[in-house]
């Protein structure tokens, strides 16, 4: 059979273009674990601690009405976090390319082995987002495009949820944007959460992930499922199962009582993000704590600070 030279050239040229397109994407494949320090992401923010989060009054009220005791409610125990948990949580993720039968990459699946963040897919093939009226879910819909070596993503169609584990609220109208730039065995991720319901400014957060080569326990092939179960009620002395935003107990917050952080700082707001806010509270008589730290004193999992040390009351 005689083949047309034009067809061969077009085939060759098409192959070259296809190959160059595929190679233009950075390979994110692999297991990535959180490498950044673990104060907020590891131990998590304390209850009612919103400093640095640009909450508006509605967001603050919704946050204060939340209590950690909801985790004892069977129908809420297994609620997962949203995609922003890749920065605010501890787990990082496994990135797997979504390919068609020709090998073309259409997106990236991001999963973790624990149940508390559902899998998400970052579609890089330019597909249109669902209708605004489409179902909003915990993972939402995420599209992405490469800008140089940075994958820029946008997540919409999110369900009402929390943007921090201390009950900081996130509405169904919020969006989550990510900038992901691999630097060798590290990946710098910047997240931008915008929420017209609960935030008065974008909340910009960042983390560094590190590529795991040992496929260890935090990111692995096993999937851990959540099984709701009755829990024994616990009390931290600050919260109860039902709370009103203006409850007196709320004014005795961890941050204020343990660390002398002023109340208006703990309540958050865009002004708390900037250096001038620090200068203001320092000028208003802030006094650093003088007693030894008793709550969340050392790095997550650290063996350096023992329980005995944390409980000590040595004063300078």
């Amino acid at each position, binding site marked *: 059979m005689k083949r047309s030279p034009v067809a061969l050239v077009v085939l060759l040229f098409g192959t070259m273009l296809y190959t160059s397109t595929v190679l233009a994407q950075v390979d994110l494949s692999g297991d990535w674990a959180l490498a950044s320090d673990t104060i907020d992401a590891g131990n998590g923010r304390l209850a009612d601690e919103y400093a640095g989060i640009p909450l508006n009054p509605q967001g603050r009220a919704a946050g204060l009405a939340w209590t950690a005791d909801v985790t004892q409610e069977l129908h809420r125990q297994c609620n997962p976090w949203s995609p922003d948990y890749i920065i605010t949580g501890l787990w990082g993720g496994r990135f797997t390319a979504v390919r068609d039968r020709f090998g073309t990459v259409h997106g990236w699946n991001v999963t973790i082995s624990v149940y508390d963040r559902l899998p998400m897919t970052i579609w890089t093939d330019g597909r249109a987002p669902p209708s605004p009226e489409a179902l909003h879910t915990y993972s939402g819909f995420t599209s992405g495009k490469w800008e140089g070596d940075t994958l820029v993503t946008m997540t919409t169609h999110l369900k009402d949820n929390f943007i921090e584990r201390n009950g900081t609220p996130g509405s169904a109208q919020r969006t989550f944007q990510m*900038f992901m730039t691999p630097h060798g065995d590290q990946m710098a991720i910047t997240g931008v959460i915008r929420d017209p319901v609960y935030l008065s400014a974008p909340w*910009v957060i960042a983390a560094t992930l590190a590529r795991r080569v040992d496929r260890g326990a935090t990111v692995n092939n096993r999937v851990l499922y959540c099984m709701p179960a009755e829990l024994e009620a616990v009390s931290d002395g600050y919260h109860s199962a039902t709370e009103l935003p203006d409850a007196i107990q709320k004014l005795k917050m961890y941050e204020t009582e343990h660390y002398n952080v002023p109340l208006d700082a703990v309540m958050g707001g865009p002004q*708390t993000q900037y250096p001038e806010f620090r200068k203001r509270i320092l000028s208003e008589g802030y006094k650093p704590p003088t007693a030894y*730290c008793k709550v969340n*004193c050392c*790095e997550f999992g650290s063996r*350096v600070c023992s329980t005995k040390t944390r409980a000590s009351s040595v004063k300078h």
Partner: protein
Amino acid sequence: MRRGALAGVLLFGSTILWAQQPGPRGAAAVPPSARDQAPWDPSGYWVSLITQNWRHRMVVVGPGDYIGVPINAEAKKVADAWNPAKAAGKECEAHGGGIVMDLPERLHISWQDANDLRVDTDTAMQTRMLHFLPTRGGAPGGVQAAPTSRPPTAMAPTRQGYSVARWVLPGGGQRFGPAGRAPHSHYGSIEVTTDHLLPGLLRTNGIPYSAGAKKTEWWDLRKEATGEQWLVISTTLVDPQYLTKPYVYDPIFQKEADGAKWDPTACSLTP
């Protein structure tokens, strides 16, 4: 007709391929400066956004509060012995190169010359100088060789240390035109390595870092179509003497229009 189509296809293809080649050989004789290489301009005024780890960055933490820093037993011993009442003269140790970019502050970044980027802070009035290498970046997402430029021999350690920087550009830095300038792309990162540091404090409650500490930073610009710009610096501090593993933190800076809010203040350990 068919030959014409064939010629057209070949011409089109060769044009694309030619466009991906480095510039003419003559251009290599004069390496572009770091300022000419810049896919984006870091100069200007930036303000830190304290959106994470607020308490440990915005107020003075109390004794024994070491959360977030992977200290070893030796560091804990040093920190436990820290007494702010006896720290006169050590105020600037809390603003050293190990932690300076993580503090609440404004930056004024400017090109001192074509290959040296100057970074001034208003808080504690510190100055860093990033000495750029005349290299052309690396492969996309790939591991790059560490910068090899060394400080002058017998250089004494300083508060901000000696920083070597380079642009790391997508595609191995082969997007430059004949004049050595980046013609279109505004993508790329700055890799900075810093050593020759004086010992200092990671926190004002006495967590130390040693003279052997070394810092690697990746500076990434996050730019919105709306004009918002954030500079995010993924930082890894290694200190064999005091840290059990690398200390990684990610300060965020927001671009400001001018220096209207620039407010220089002296080094301080306490309010």
